[in-house]
């Protein structure tokens, strides 16, 4: 596999619901990484994906894929989307309504290869649906077709914007495995927007955390989501799933990155800046937990 380091150094003024915001991204992404773009809505994650795909132009900067310059504002280079050898799936993706599932996938291939199309169809569990038109598919089925189609052209870079958002939990976990499988099989670099911490931990080799148009942290998931400002050695990151009041305390249920359910007692002062759905860190000292063998 060739080495295609992706070099990104761009600026773009965005107009968000909260007024203008400047997206400033300077980073490098290693070849073959599965990168999660993580952060709140409106932080600029989708815009960054669109800039990489060539669908949106930055105000200025450089985007390079290995030695190939995709975008350079000073040199006035802007390689069109079709020439970037990318596969993408955005939230507003559309399948061709007049084509069957199979035809949609075949159409996306740059080199027609019925065997490869057939493989993708079975990887994504679409065998029974191959002759159906998109109007006869559920939201989740359409998402799977769109994902298979994004992979059909054997892209060197796969861009996914919350690819599994319309799926139920079981299908989500299954397709997470398929995305990883396809990612490894094709040796592509994959950049995926995700709001789901579990998904990030399951899939990503590298996380880019974006807030208010700026990169806040980058690194391995366990580094990005751990906290070195506290001495506690047992640190679990997760999302608040429930808060129950039981006077004078609160019982907070946290679902961890590895899908473990944890309950923590919190006092009112702890909850001042916490709410349902927040990403949190649960920590304790190495002295407290008791360890025992399973089974």
């Amino acid at each position: 596999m060739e080495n295609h380091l992706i070099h990104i150094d761009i600026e773009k003024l965005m107009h968000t619901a909260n007024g203008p915001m400047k997206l400033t991204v300077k980073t490098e992404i290693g070849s073959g990484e599965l990168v999660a773009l993580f952060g709140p809505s409106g932080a600029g994650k989708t815009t960054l994906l669109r800039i990489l795909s060539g669908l949106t132009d930055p105000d200025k900067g450089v985007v390079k894929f290995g030695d190939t310059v995709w975008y350079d504002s000073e040199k006035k280079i802007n390689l069109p989307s079709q020439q970037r050898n990318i596969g993408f799936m955005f939230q507003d993706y559309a399948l061709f309504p007049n084509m069957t599932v199979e035809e949609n996938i075949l159409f996306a291939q740059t080199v027609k290869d019925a065997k490869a199309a057939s493989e993708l169809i079975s990887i994504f569990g679409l065998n029974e649906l191959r002759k159906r038109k998109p109007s006869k598919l559920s939201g989740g089925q359409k998402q799977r077709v769109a994902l298979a189609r994004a992979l059909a052209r054997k892209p060197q870079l796969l861009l996914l914007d919350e690819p599994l958002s319309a799926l139920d939990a079981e299908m989500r976990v299954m397709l997470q495995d398929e995305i990883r499988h396809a990612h490894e099989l094709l040796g592509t670099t994959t950049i995926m927007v995700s709001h789901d911490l579990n998904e990030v931990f399951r899939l990503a080799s590298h996380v880019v955390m974006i807030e208010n148009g700026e990169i806040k942290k980058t690194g391995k998931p366990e580094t990005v989501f751990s906290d070195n400002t506290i001495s506690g050695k047992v640190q679990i990151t997760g999302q608040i799933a429930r808060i129950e009041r039981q006077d004078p305390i609160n019982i907070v249920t946290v679902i961890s990155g590895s899908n473990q359910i944890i309950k923590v007692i919190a006092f009112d002062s702890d909850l001042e800046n916490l709410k349902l759905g927040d990403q949190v860190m649960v920590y304790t000292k190495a002295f407290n937990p008791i360890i025992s063998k399973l089974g």
Partner: protein
Amino acid sequence: MNKLPAIISSIQQSGTILLVDAEVEGQGFSALLIESVSRLEWLEVGKSIDLVFKETEVSLARNLQGQISMRNRMKCNVLKVHKGELLSTITLKFKSFTLVSAITTRSINNLKLEIGDEVDALVKANEVSLMKTPQAGIK
């Protein structure tokens, strides 16, 4: 959680175990820690840190006599008592700080705690975490 600003006065180490002493307005505290893979850069004698411990780890004693192993002992006054069915919280004044202890309602009743009462709040050294003090001007 309870948080007390402190200054590290000494660090003793044996293998990977650290015993950190810190002062809060002149009173000594101890925290027992396990060393990190990479030593936390803010863990140094003279640095300002926060001592952090959970409300449920704060024991209370009245007219405490004799010897006791607990190193972190705070003379407090009761500011507020909030009784729940089984568990209660007591808000305490320690020097210029406010602490909270959560103990069983049964224990509060046994101790007959009232507002203004003087109590000793006790925390084991291994229940105390250290936290880097957030610094002004750092994003």
